[in-house]
């Protein structure tokens, strides 16, 4: 028989009576950095588990894209005409675009892929999209190193703009990628269609940024309406990457910047970063509104 409750000691709990697992959204994610670290480690080892080439897939993908674009767009279609060092232009664009598409794609799958945890344990669900973004950021490091080495061999002269451009581009993609990962991972729980839609969007993104072709081509086609193209934050991030890496490997950087980069790129970049942060806040609001339905919809 059970001992009566009045015969047992009662633990004094020094905590307020509060709803269990209260969630402050992204703030909770950064409060619980150790858990985030474990999830990132898990995803790094898990993203390419059961594959022989493993993490190399993260490089094979952009590398094959590089070869195809270089051959067909550059050589056969002639996109590299009138451009110095087209391969670096292409590669720099691919590095940052791949960071975005990897964040977007893996982030969208992140909630569904961790349903075993989400159905049983209480934790900030924002952890998973954020972890996906950080894993993609981790994969960006070697790609960037390769880019730097290629640039150095091509006679690179970094300027004061190199590091701030690079960091601003990363900031844009991190904020926008996390915002989209939050919303799409949530949507993907309710309708699996969103996972498929992301693949299509990803394809359009590659053509919507100055990577295979220079920005001057858009200016030539759109004239004074080229600003519409710059409303795309990813296009701004890619242009910042071109400013950081490609401009410095051309024989006459100042002329290259004047010809192939938009005026006021800094303004566009900062604007894109601001917009991405606003979108991140909106994404958090949407996520918080619907996240309580996630566990029951994960089947």
């Amino acid at each position, binding site marked *: 028989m059970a001992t009566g*409750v009045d015969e047992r000691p009662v633990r004094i*709990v020094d905590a307020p009576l509060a*709803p*269990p697992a*209260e969630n402050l959204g992204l703030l909770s994610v950064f409060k*619980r950095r150790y858990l985030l670290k474990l999830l990132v480690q898990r995803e790094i080892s898990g993203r390419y588990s059961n594959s022989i080439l493993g993490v190399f897939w993260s490089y094979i993908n952009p590398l094959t894209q590089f070869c195809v674009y270089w051959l067909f767009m550059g050589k056969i279609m002639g996109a590299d005409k009138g451009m110095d060092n087209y391969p670096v232009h292409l590669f720099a664009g691919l590095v940052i675009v791949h960071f975005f598409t990897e964040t977007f794609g893996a982030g969208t799958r992140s909630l569904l892929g961790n349903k075993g945890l989400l159905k049983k344990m209480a934790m900030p669900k924002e952890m998973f999209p954020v972890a996906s973004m950080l894993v993609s950021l981790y994969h960006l490091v070697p790609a960037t190193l390769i880019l730097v080495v290629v640039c150095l061999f091509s006679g690179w002269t970094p300027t004061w703009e190199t590091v701030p451009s690079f960091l601003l581009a990363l900031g844009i993609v991190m904020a926008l990628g996390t915002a989209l990962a939050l919303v799409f991972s949530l949507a993907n729980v309710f309708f699996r269609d969103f996972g498929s839609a992301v693949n299509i969007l990803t394809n359009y993104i590659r053509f919507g940024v100055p990577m295979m072709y220079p920005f001057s081509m858009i200016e030539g086609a759109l004239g004074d309406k080229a600003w519409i193209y710059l409303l795309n934050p990813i296009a701004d991030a890619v242009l910042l990457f071109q400013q950081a890496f490609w401009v410095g490997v051309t024989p006459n950087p100042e002329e290259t910047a004047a010809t192939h980069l938009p005026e006021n790129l800094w303004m566009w970049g900062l604007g894109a970063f601001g917009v991405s942060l606003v979108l991140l806040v909106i994404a958090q609001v949407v996520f918080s509104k619907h996240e309580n339905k996630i566990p029951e919809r994960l089947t």
Partner: protein
Amino acid sequence: MTLRQAQDTGAADSIVVDGVTKNFTLRYHRSIKDITVAKMKGRAVSNTFKALDDVTFTIKQGESVGLMGLNGSGKSTLLKLISGVMRPDQGVVKTRGQIAGLIATGAGFHPQLSGRENIFLNAAIYGLSEEETAAIYDDVVNFAELGDHLNSPVGNYSSGQYSRLGFSVAVHIDSDIFLADEVLAVGDKPFKKKCMEKMEEIRDSGRTVVYVSHAAGSVKRMCDRVICLEKGRLVFDGDVDEGIEYLHYGEDDAKGSAKLKQLEAADSALGAEV
């Protein structure tokens, strides 16, 4: 012991469930094609049902409460709301202090990670730091008795091994509220015995225990109060024996003594009939 007596001890509220309703949407049709066909045939596209319907109760710190009811009566949903995995559609759930435990026989593990890595991940989700996990790690491993399997992915574990590990992590968390959902449904007899003893130890240390079980014997042994759910509604809240009687568990009305024997057998088998 009844709720009234527990209140007399002056213990603080540990779990407050107030007017809680949880609806689930059952989706019959998910694609546009299916929805169109259903609409044309005049069938329902989806319907909702109340997994929990206006449930209200309070559990004091240190109480050990058995949560009983038939399959699908809302026991696991209630535990998910208490643990914070789910949130109620209406009403309020409030808890005090750290919560640990098992929901629906399994812990939240990642199938690709080894048992060892999952111990650290699981503990981190409960809010433990790396040092705190390292401090309980040996106890968790010894209790789970998984041997070499600890280094293989938990995806390869049997259901028994899986819940051994989950239970072992949960009981070694210094929780104020311990939730146990059909923990004895899997696992062999020696392990069940160990689990029961561990849960009694938790209960006797003044922590709140919510124990879901169909085994009347083990509820009698563990709990001093029973809450019964029926189709999402709270239908009984009070004395253990009365609660078990209320549910007519394992009872053939004509044979009261047979029922008693069964309970005694269940007691000795420690819920082996779960």
